[in-house]
């Protein structure tokens, strides 16, 4: 029996506009409304709407079919505001009862690496939004500081948690377990799995109840990256061929985790490549083998016991060939930007200005740091997807100018506070 587990990542950041040094202290308008809407509109038309329609069709046609999504809070907010049709189509998928939504950080941030309190707050924010929109996880969470373990343990149990960019280590599992999750997803990188197959359920080192699902990156990347690659020896990839590859996992595992960006369908792989027809035919081809089926991460965790413990002491992600954090933290601009944004945390959270806190959180989206990546930049590489900048340096300049404006706002807020306090003291 092989269960295919689809999980698709849906995320669009709120991109920054070219904010100049001359605006610092003068303008609080940070985001490129027009560009963000243009991109959202394009991706909705090219990917989200047609892909969701196909998924609904497939769920209707095949009672065995299952699929799961992780949608960032930042993306959901934008759907609510500008693309309600997209949100409705996800709700329709949710109503089938065979579509699972995962939790992640609301702002698609690297907060786990830089601030655990912020990380937990963002996960909680996300959990609440998903619950409100899709009617799952009916528990209430409140924003409080520091005493996280007690409170977050109340997070609904039957949830699977996926960290930003599949960033994972033993510590992620430990926190997720404390937060009450049943499972965590991670990249099935060679240096993590070594000789092991990603086609089994594992247990994080040191965990008691939580399970670990690894991405089968070969099969996932065959679709996500190689589908239209004409120089690839397997091109063209048909649903029949891919179905056979999945069946081959029989006897060498019981799950196949296909994790990828949802934008694979129609955006990274254009409709002309035949990606939608591939998607339409795939369940049928997979089900041709009587032992094959579909499952969501929660289904798998319920039905499969971990076969072994896997130790992941260092952070692993699904980015680039390195599968590490270097796409976001590899150069000194990125390190400095991250260090500075998180060093403001205490001041931001105590300023009492909700708009400022929200702006600060929007600045945490991993995308902003990804755009600053200089790795392979000269070779004109990949980090260009949905990238609003011509160069990593332009991305850094806008980011830092805005960060300095936030800093000035903080200073002003602090001064006002002090003034009020002084005034109160004087009045007695």
């Amino acid at each position, binding site marked *: 029996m092989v269960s295919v587990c689809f999980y698709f990542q849906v995320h669009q950041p709120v991109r920054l506009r*070219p904010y*100049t*040094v*001359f605006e610092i202290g003068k303008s609080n308008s940070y985001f490129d409304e027009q560009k963000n809407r243009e991109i959202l509109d394009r991706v909705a038309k090219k990917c989200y709407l047609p892909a969701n329609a196909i998924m609904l069709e497939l769920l209707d046609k095949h009672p065995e079919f299952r699929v799961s999504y992780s949608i960032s809070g930042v993306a959901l907010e934008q759907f609510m505001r500008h693309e309600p049709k997209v949100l409705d189509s996800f709700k329709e998928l949710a109503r089938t009862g065979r579509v699972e939504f995962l939790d992640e950080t609301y702002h698609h941030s690297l907060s786990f690496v830089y601030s655990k309190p912020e990380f937990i707050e963002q996960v909680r924010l996300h959990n609440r939004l998903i619950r409100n929109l899709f009617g799952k996880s009916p528990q209430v969470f409140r924003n409080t500081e520091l005493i996280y373990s007690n409170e977050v343990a109340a997070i609904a149990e039957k949830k699977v948690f996926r960290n930003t960019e599949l960033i994972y280590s033993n510590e992620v599992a430990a926190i997720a377990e404390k937060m009450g999750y049943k499972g965590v997803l991670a990249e099935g990188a060679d240096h993590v799995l070594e000789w092991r197959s990603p086609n089994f359920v594992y247990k994080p080192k040191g965990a008691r109840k939580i399970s670990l699902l690894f991405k089968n990156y070969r099969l996932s990347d065959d679709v996500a990256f190689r589908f239209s690659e004409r120089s690839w020896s397997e091109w063209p990839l048909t649903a029949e061929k891919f179905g056979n590859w999945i069946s081959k996992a029989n006897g060498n595992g019981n799950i196949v985790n296909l994790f990828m960006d949802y934008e694979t369908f129609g955006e990274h792989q254009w409709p002309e490549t035949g990606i939608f027809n591939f998607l339409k035919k795939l369940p049928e081809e997979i089900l041709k083998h009587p032992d094959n089926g579909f499952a969501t991460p929660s289904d798998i965790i319920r039905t499969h016991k971990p076969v072994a413990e896997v130790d992941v002491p260092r952070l692993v992600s699904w980015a680039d060939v390195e599968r590490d954090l270097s796409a976001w933290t590899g*150069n*000194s*601009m990125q*390190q*400095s930007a991250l260090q500075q944004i998180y060093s403001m945390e205490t001041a931001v959270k105590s300023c009492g200005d909700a708009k400022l806190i929200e702006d600060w959180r929007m600045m945490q989206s991993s995308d902003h740091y990804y755009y600053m990546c*200089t790795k392979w*930049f*000269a070779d*004109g590489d990949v980090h260009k997807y949905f990238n609003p900048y*011509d*160069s990593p*340096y*332009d991305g*850094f*300049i806008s980011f*830092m*100018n805005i960060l300095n404006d936030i800093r000035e706002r903080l200073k002003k807020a602090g001064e006002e506070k002090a003034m009020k306090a002084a005034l109160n003291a004087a009045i007695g």
Partner: protein
Amino acid sequence: MKVLMFGWEFPPMNTGGLGTACYGLTKGLSQNGVSITLVLPQAAADTGRFGFLKIRNANISNVKVKPVKSAMVAYMSPSDYEQYMLKMKGRKSIYGQNLFEEVERFARQAAIIAKEELGEKGEGFDIIHAHDWMTYKAGMAAKRVSGKPLVVHVHATEFDRTGGLGANEYVYGIEKEGMEKADAVIAVSGYTRQKIMENYGIPESKIRVVHNAIDKDDIPWIGSLDHGKSSGSTKTVLYLGRITLQKGPDYFVAAAKKALEADPNIRFIIAGSGDMEPRIIEKAAELGIGHNVLFAGFLRDEEIHKAYRMADLYVMPSVSEPFGITPLEAVMNQTPVIISKQSGVKEVLKHCLQVDFWDIDQMANKMVAALKYGEMHSELQRNSYEEVSKLSWSKSAQGCIEVYSNVIGGMRTGW
């Protein structure tokens, strides 16, 4: 392979880094085993920065320099010529009448030299290579008498030099004829190739891009690279180039004014000379930033590299720059650069800041940011140095050799 090459070097005319590029390519070709007879006007051969003396000192083998005697240089040194050009300002042409006479004379001499060089067996050279319009007539004459194929190398077009305003018909005519009669055209960038196609009607298949380069040993030894930057709170932004319309000095000064509003601790240095110099000095004073903008005059040799090195940032705001070697020189002196998007060099230099020459707000924004954000400054410094270190004149020369081989083999298509 043997090449008969026609070069030219007078300081006012070396737009597009003609002298630097000729020298670099000659060196690179020689390193790749190509023999060159380099025909130059006498002045260039004797005194040019990249002329005969430098080639002899650089120990380049297989290169023979043939000076052509000229009437003009007998009474006119390069700096006299510059004065002459300044006097010509306001007249319709940016070129003196003598220059056109000189070009014609050079072409007549070229025919004689080509015949001599060809030898009785007709094996003295395999191909003719001519750099920019001043030598195209010479190249065509050499082709006529020898029957050997001609490659013309476009370092700049009349449209770059004049900023699109009032292109000289005579010069344009020579450029167009040269490109048409040539068996292949080499462009210093994709940017220039586009202009050649648009303005001269030359088909893309006939044009091959060979980017200019820089060699580490082109940078003179003036002490360790990590010395020279100002340590105080005042930062230096450098403009280095001719002060002419094409190079965009007016945009530089306007951006300087804007940048000083955000950071008054910046010093701007303008190094170079040219017909717009008085106007730019006036403009700086008008804008009230006279004390922040220093004019260093025309720099030579080591002075140039010292200027790059003491600067914290180099800006090339050109209105139209077919290539632009100066940013590469700045980078090799560990100085980050802002370059105009209207340039060819951006095709080989990615680790830099780029702006549209007319976008003064962004130019000022990026100037201030480059000085303000140290982590970006050092990333730019390190990454651009690494990137530019991979370039070499030898590699560029290999591009030329491919063109030669294709032309000689009669395969003009499929590049």
